[in-house]
């Protein structure tokens, strides 16, 4: 080898060698190795390249980032890859471009090379493209060396040796910590007492205070590994996942609404939150944990354990107006660019601690990340939009197919039943002015406000209708028609008995009650049967309308006894679910009621009409959401019974057919729809351009998907502009979780450390770049990262390591020599003591509920909603006080509304989910004091707490003791007990409880 300049990264090239797909890179190595006989580089080629290519591909312009005037740049190639394939001119893009048939693409523009020049180039390349490095080449190469690439965080994780192997009993973490302490003449503090330890561990690992029983058990445990056992118990608790998920949701800026102007609800975002809790509890390896969140839907598209994980990508805010509603293209492009920026900023800061977003408008000011790199990362996700999607498309398809099959069979069975039944009385026919045996007119109807018979004359919205004012129908068989609205009683005929139990409606109506479909009805088909077709009938009843039949008149000529009203009621509008309500009443008593949408299919009703029944009433109401598309209809609405002339065999056939229909309907009702969740919706990836100054209206060149070049030791995914969304994200997920990725394990190890000490070893946990801080204990950080990777990326392993260290267990106050230590290290970055901490907002709320005895430990499922919701263009959320068990769940299950933060939690520093929050800020304000003193939730909790004490014991001193145990996990001392007695004497137990919630000791732990 002439030199090794081409090979500054042997590890990278070895990787490439092992990858046959990167043949080009391998061949490049020989560049400069083979001597040319016929062509002389310095004489023939260098001047040619300089003079014919150098204007554009020299130091001034660097078109396509290609320079052909200096060796190392020519070797590197353009932004699109190598241009010279040593030994193979035909395969070299350089030759392709100088000989291109298309004039527009041929190089140099407007001034093609001569045949002789091309021939020289060909021969030079075929001979191995030798290019001995000149002094000028070397100088250019050295000038370009970028010292930022030497930044510690980009270097591979090196598992350091333990500083003090001579102390085998010393916990590895403490070997690192104590070595640095010793360097400055400091010592670790003593181990804290057991009550302090269990309080610290419980809040850290579970986010909850320990119960008095937990404390007693631990404090009196004499086994030598009592502490280790406690750590194991807590790591195994299901509440561990709840606590850890809260940390992760902070960096995913998760919420249950979109945010922005129209802050709509995401009904199923919570499935991702539940996935997180389970993943932490199950100790899913952190590599798999990340891979699933980045690409689970393409790794295992039909497994909800994988798909739901990708809720991560969609967790942040989303601008409905900007992306969907606005007609302005500029706004839409801006909104989409912001959307992708938000997504990749979240991904890159969460997983890698890299502030990629700084390179959106220009190259990163501090880190070696170019603007092109930024858009390369954007391109990885350009196939992702956010939306409601299936957790398992395969299960979804199976469900739909099965439902369709059953519906078809139900329809067929119902038709067969109708054929068997014989002489029945058809109610639709009566609505058409007939007698029930076919004398009425199809399409005719009754005006619901006047009772007049209408033939044809389709009507629209009925203005000025009065609710609950029944009028007689056009024939004696129709006792009344009306426009219904609850909750007022509805007289079912002008003189008739009142019907109660309806909800309030808009009291608006549309068209007539029809013998057939109503005006503009979307569909007349239910379960494959068209009730407008021959052999069927339908009674169309658009909300809000109702009709009461006079059974005496209807049944006067009946050819059967024991009358039964049978029909298939369904929804003919377009709304998939919750379209409109139907109600059936006999003599003003509701006998059937339900809410239907298009997806529900038909419901068979089978309603016996007892002897002496006078009125049958059918009602359609608007489900409280206005009357658009509220097209209820009753298919084959008939009254029949035991025909006076029917054979027993026929009767049995009819009974059997009815059973068949009933059992198939039951089977259909039992089908469980496949859950959906809010996550990434894949689309063909958009072409991503570098945007000049980040402006979507100023696109520059297209950029292919890529990763960060500054992580030199990593195999870079082979992606191009043709790669599918699945290929992009899967490749990226593997790049992120490559065990050789220096950032991923360091960043998470640091986050775990931060959660146990309040500050990370790197105190800028989402910025490991040059703008971030240096680690206080670099070797320890690498040791933890290496431990993580070598233990199958087990997070619990790292928690266990940290929690069992002396550094973690030491005192936070009362430390011997504290003044001297403070003078040397006031921030306690060297950890000469543990850090005392204040509870975060969620933990304060959870601790209050736990102490009062109210805490509802139900896990998983949709979040609790401590607000009133009002549907509007921009929905209105109004906070309410949580004062019922369903709202007393742990705060991780709070339904988070971006536009309406919880005032109580916000005052206590709960962050706004518009922001990525790697570190919780802590403030101390008078408004916090007021919130804890006077907030309605706190006051009621103080009452519940006092009730708990009263119910537990009648003795005042015992109550005081129990209260201290529950709130502080200790007994009161004499002074406290005396003061408590006096307060209770002077005021009441509730005031005492209220003050315990306000105590510093309650919201901090040592």
């Amino acid at each position, binding site marked *: 080898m002439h030199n090794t300049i081409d090979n500054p990264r042997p590890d990278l090239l070895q990787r490439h060698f092992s990858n046959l797909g990167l043949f080009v890179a391998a061949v490049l190595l020989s560049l400069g190795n083979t001597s040319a006989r016929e062509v002389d580089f310095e004489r023939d080629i260098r001047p040619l390249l300089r003079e014919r290519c150098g204007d554009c591909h020299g130091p001034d312009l660097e078109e396509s980032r290609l320079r052909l005037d200096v060796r190392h740049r020519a070797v590197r190639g353009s932004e699109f890859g190598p241009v010279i394939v040593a030994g193979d001119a035909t395969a070299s893009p350089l030759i392709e471009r100088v000989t291109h048939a298309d004039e527009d693409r041929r190089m140099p523009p407007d001034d093609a090379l001569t045949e002789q020049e091309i021939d020289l180039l060909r021969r030079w390349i075929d001979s191995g493209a030798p290019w001995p490095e000149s002094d000028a080449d070397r100088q250019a190469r050295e000038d370009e060396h970028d010292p930022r690439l030497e930044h510690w965080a980009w270097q591979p994780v090196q598992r350091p040796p333990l500083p003090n192997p001579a102390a085998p009993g010393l916990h590895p973490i403490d070997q690192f910590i104590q070595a640095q302490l010793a360097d400055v003449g400091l010592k670790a503090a003593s181990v804290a007492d057991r009550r302090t330890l269990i309080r610290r561990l419980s809040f850290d690992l579970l986010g909850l205070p320990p119960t008095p029983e937990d404390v007693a058990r631990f404090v009196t445990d004499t086994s030598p590994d009592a502490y280790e056992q406690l750590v194991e118990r807590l790591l195994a608790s299901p509440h561990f996942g709840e606590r850890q998920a809260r940390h992760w949701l902070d960096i995913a800026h998760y919420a249950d609404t979109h945010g922005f102007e129209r802050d709509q609800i995401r009904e199923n975002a919570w499935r991702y939150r539940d996935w997180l809790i389970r993943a932490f509890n199950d100790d899913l390896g952190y590599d798999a944990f990340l891979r699933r969140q980045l690409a689970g839907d393409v790794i295992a598209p039909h497994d909800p354990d994988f798909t739901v994980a990708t809720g991560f990508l969609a967790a942040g805010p989303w601008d409905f107006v900007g992306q969907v509603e606005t007609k302005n293209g500029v*706004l839409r492009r801006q909104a989409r660019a912001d959307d992708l920026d938000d997504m990749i900023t979240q991904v890159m800061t969460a997983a890698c601690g890299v502030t990629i977003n700084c390179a959106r408008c220009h190259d990163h000011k501090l880190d070696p990340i170019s603007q092109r790199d930024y858009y390369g990362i954007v391109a990885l996700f350009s196939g992702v939009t956010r939306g409601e999607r299936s957790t398992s498309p395969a299960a979804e398809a199976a469900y739909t197919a099965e439902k369709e099959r059953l519906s078809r069979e139900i329809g067929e069975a119902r038709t067969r039943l109708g054929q068997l039944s014989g002489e029945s009385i058809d109610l639709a026919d009566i609505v058409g002015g007939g007698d029930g045996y076919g004398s009425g007119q199809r399409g005719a109807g009754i005006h619901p406000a006047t009772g007049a018979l209408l033939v044809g004359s389709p009507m629209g919205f009925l203005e000025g209708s009065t609710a609950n004012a029944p009028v007689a129908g056009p024939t004696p068989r129709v006792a009344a028609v009306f426009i219904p609205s609850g909750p007022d009683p509805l007289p079912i005929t002008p003189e008739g008995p009142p019907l109660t139990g309806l909800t309030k409606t808009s009291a608006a109506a549309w068209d007539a009650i029809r013998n057939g479909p109503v005006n503009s009805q979307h569909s007349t088909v239910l379960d494959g049967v068209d009730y407008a077709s021959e052999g069927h009938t339908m009674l169309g009843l658009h909300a809000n309308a109702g009709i009461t039949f006079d059974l005496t008149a209807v049944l006067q000529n009946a050819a059967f006894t024991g009358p039964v009203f049978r029909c298939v009621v369904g929804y003919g509008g377009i709304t998939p679910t919750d379209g409109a309500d139907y109600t059936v009443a006999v003599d003003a008593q509701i006998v059937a009621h339900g809410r239907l949408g298009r997806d529900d299919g038909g419901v068979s009703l089978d309603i016996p009409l007892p002897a002496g029944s006078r009125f049958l009433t059918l009602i359609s109401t608007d489900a409280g959401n206005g009357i658009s598309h509220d097209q209820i209809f009753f298919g084959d609405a008939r009254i029949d019974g035991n025909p006076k002339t029917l054979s027993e065999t026929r009767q049995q056939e009819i009974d059997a057919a009815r059973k068949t229909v009933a059992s198939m309907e039951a089977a259909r009702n039992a089908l469980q729809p496949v859950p959906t969740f809010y996550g990434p919706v894949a689309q063909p990836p958009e072409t991503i351009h570098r945007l000049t100054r980040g402006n979507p209206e100023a696109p520059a060149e297209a950029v292919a998907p890529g990763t960060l070049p500054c992580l030199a030791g990593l195999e870079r995914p082979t992606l191009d502009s043709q790669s599918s969304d699945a290929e992009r994200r899967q490749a990226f997920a593997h790049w992120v979780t490559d065990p050789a990725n220096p950032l991923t394990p360091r960043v998470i190890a640091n986050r775990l450390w931060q959660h146990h000490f309040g500050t990370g070893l790197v105190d800028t946990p989402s910025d490991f770049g040059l703008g971030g801080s240096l680690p206080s204990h670099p070797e320890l950080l690498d040791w933890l990262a290496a431990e993580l990777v070598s233990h199958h990326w087990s997070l619990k392993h790292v928690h266990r390591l940290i929690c069992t260290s002396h550094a973690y267990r030491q005192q936070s106050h009362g430390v011997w020599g504290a003044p001297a230590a403070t003078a040397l290290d006031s921030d306690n970055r060297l950890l000469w003591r543990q*850090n005392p901490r204040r509870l975060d907002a969620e933990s304060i709320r959870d601790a209050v509920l736990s102490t009062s005895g109210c805490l509802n430990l139900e896990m998983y499922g949709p979040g609790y909603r401590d607000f009133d919701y009002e549907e509007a263009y921009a929905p209105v959320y109004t906070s309410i006080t949580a004062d019922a068990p369903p709202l007393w769940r742990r705060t991780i299950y709070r339904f988070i509304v971006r536009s309406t933060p919880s005032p109580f939690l916000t005052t206590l520093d709960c962050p706004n989910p518009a922001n990525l929050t790697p570190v919780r800020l802590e403030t101390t304000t008078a408004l916090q004091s007021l919130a804890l003193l006077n907030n309605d939730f706190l006051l009621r909790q103080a009452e519940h707490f006092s009730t708990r004490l009263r119910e537990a014991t009648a003795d005042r001193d015992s109550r005081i003791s129990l209260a201290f145990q529950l709130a502080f996990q200790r007994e009161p001392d004499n002074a406290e007990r005396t003061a408590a007695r006096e*307060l209770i004497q002077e005021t009441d137990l509730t005031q005492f409880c209220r*003050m315990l919630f306000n*105590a510093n000791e309650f919201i901090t732990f040592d």
Partner: protein
Amino acid sequence: MDQPLSHAGRHLLDRRQFLQHGGTGLGGIALAALLAEEGRTAAPAAASAAAADGPIRPIIDPSAPYAPRPPHFQPKAKNVLLIFCSGAISHVDTFDYKPELLKRHDMPMPVDGEKLITFQGEQGNLIKPQWEFRPRGESGTMTSDLLPHLGELADEMCFIHSMTAKSNTHGPAENQMATGFTLDGFPSVGAWVTYALGSECRDLPAFVAIPDPRGVPQVGPRQWQSAFLPAVFQGTPMSADRPIPNLARPDTITADADRASRDFLAMLNEQHLAEHPRDSDLAARIAAYELAAKMQLSAAEITDLSGETAATLALYGADDTANTTKARFAQNCILARRLIEKGVRFVQLFNGAYAMGEGVGNWDGHKTLVDQYSVHGPILDQPVAGLLRDLKDRGLLADTLVAFVTEFGRMPTFQKGASGRDHNPSGFTVWLAGAGVKRAFHYGATDEFGYKAVENISTIYDLHATILHLLGLQHTRLTYYNNGLERRLTDVHGHVIEPILA
């Protein structure tokens, strides 16, 4: 002040941080030196506060986060009153006089090449101002009859007629006026100002937001949020009829019981503190409870308008029994003056609310502008004019900067098939008054129709930079480190509008 050790110093109010500020600064330096010797913790480049153009991050004492802090240079103004008209008040019907619209009334607007598609769709013809303009004040400034009381004070105003916004959608545009960014999640102007300067008033919040009696603006509390700044700097919402949340002692607890309870709490906390000597955070919490008690008194006083004279009530229109919405808004205006009087650093007064629907409760006059503005004009006019006059009469304008803003302007055309104007972020008017700005001054201009800013085009960044400048703050240096960036109110933009400075 720079933090040689690390970014730890950037995290305000971090409990462990305080020891360093409050105690000996020597500790951090000694450790830094030791670590630097190891070659591992060389101070990062960002620790460059000593440099002339480096970031200036105020140092906050957690036990007194509102304590006054020095500005960067001698300020012209001490307080800010920001009046925000929600829904985008039409400049062509109020303060931006365009005679060409009278000449070309009901004629198409000539537009270069492009077809004009604004927020809601196509545009109809140019439409003249719907209220007559007249010369007012000694300056003869032309303002319309929609706001006659404000017109009388035209000599006090410093108009910027060439304001532009980045979005033509209410949400993002409100965000931009309130925070500098169209996206959610950035601190409001008031949060930045109180972060920088604290407050002269110790027993009231440093930053108060007064929502309109009809409700909150479109982006709601995001108008006064602290976002990534410490929560202590968020605006506290209160109005004349809605006091500070959780301020009052609950009715169910007597004053004596409350006092006895707090004595008990103080005893618990002091005993706890004795076991945790040197923990300034615990001490700060005790101090916060004491401040809360003071605030309960002073904040209850501040909303009690019973001591205001009949003349004052009449000046603001707070005695208008015929128009109760106006009277309630007027009471908010009186509250604003009382807060300024007390030295509250930043008061944000809202006119108009969102939830009632397009243009019903705010200035979003798309379809029936005359009908809607005939309701909103009187609610705004006399109360804000009364406020301005009262501030002046009491000498408060000498130290107070008043800024009258809205999220964007409206079109000089009517929307096709409607009698109202669509959104127009390309040119609109805001005005300043009081400390540090010229009187009866006009800066910038829109084109002959009021459609686009064409002369001295100004941005919201410029406006924010100017507000900070008047408070003695360099907008390029007032920063807060968040997620890898030194964040600024003005992002990487903004120029102080020098010509309007007095």
